[in-house]
């Protein structure tokens, strides 16, 4: 039986990439919902500029979220 050896560098990489990606994906989708909800509220209150700003915020957050999803699918395809 060979000696136990786990690549510590690889393990550390898994930990920090998972932490970053996991929290980021959840935060980005939360921002999408936040932007969409506030855009709706602002539109109903007659604040057109604020509604547009929140909508743009939601779109940017969704674009980043979608980029993460595409990166994930790319990872599956390339492995």
């Amino acid at each position, binding site marked *: 039986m060979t000696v136990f050896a786990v690549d510590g560098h*690889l393990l550390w990489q898994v*930990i920090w990439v998972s932490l970053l990606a996991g*929290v980021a994906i959840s935060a980005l989708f939360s921002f999408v919902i936040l932007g969409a909800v506030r855009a709706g509220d602002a539109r109903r209150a007659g604040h057109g500029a604020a509604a547009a700003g929140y909508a743009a915020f939601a779109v940017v957050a969704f674009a980043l979220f979608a980029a993460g999803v595409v990166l994930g699918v790319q990872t599956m395809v390339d492995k």
Partner: protein
Amino acid sequence: MDHDFVLWIVVGTALAFDFTNGFHDTANAVATSISTRALSPRLAVGIAAILNFAGAFISLAVAATIATGIVDADLITPAIVFAGLVGAIAWNLATWYFGLPSSSSHALIGGVVGSAFVAEGPEAVYGSGIIDKVVVPALVAPVLAFVVGGLAILVAYRILGRQRPGPVVRGFRLGQVLSGSLLALSHGTNDAQKTMGIIFLALVANGNVAADADVPTWVVVSAATAIALGTYVGGWRIIRTMGNRIIKMDPAQGFAAQGVGATVIMAASQVGFPLSTTHVISGAIMGTGAAKRVSAVRWGVAGNIVAAWVLTLPAAAAVGGLTYAVVALLGSEGLGPIAVSAALLAALAVALGRRLVAGRTLTAEG
């Protein structure tokens, strides 16, 4: 002729394992979506089945590596693979019966390790491989997912804490459709490959295809079909455990658990450190529950799940080893695999017959 017959028994057993793999792991992709009512049960398993099927075609790098580095590949025979598969199937069915999510990959590795150990002795098994590919990932996956899941839900609550619950719930339910779909696709790319690899190995060992040949199309299609069918049938006992019995989850927790699960699995795959989907999702569910309130997690259920994880490798190895001993006793080149598979099919028919007589359907989600 005998060799071909044993080969087809191995192929059939590998597809049966693939079916139980899909059946057993349906919960990973759908449990949280069903629990939070993001999707109806039938729609959830339907989508998961289609994406598992599609996922099997995405990456065709043969995962013949399932036992590489764990057992001596030169010593592996079709009879060893057959006995290993029986060990893995037995563990998948036992854990399904008790509604416990456990890793099908670890069950397969355990089964092959047990049968190789009985067939060829301790020199056929690499201890370091078991630690690197089973023990360390089994320790890292749930703990990492628990921490990331907890952080993710705290961030989500912090961002959306003061918003009206209605649109927030609808938003996260929509997000769950996406995160659950990603998980199902990822499962198809990972797990159907294991069966393709095993069938391919058996074909090479039997001289039907060259080692450097492409995976035959029928192997890809049959493995994809078996895992998709298994997913569609659905292991409802495990779905109930993961969806309702660990924590009572809201859609934000469901999304966080699935989103974290998908990202941790993909991040780990990206850096070449594959983790068990079951361990990751279970850990993430517990993490999202504990972050809200430690007592929100039913730690007794969580303890049973962890006990099943600890037992997976030795239990599957024991069944795999025992099966190989019986096969070897009857003749590993012919009668052994035939007699064992016939006995198992008869036992399965009796079990299904009793279930039907008792008035229970085979696929009911209730």
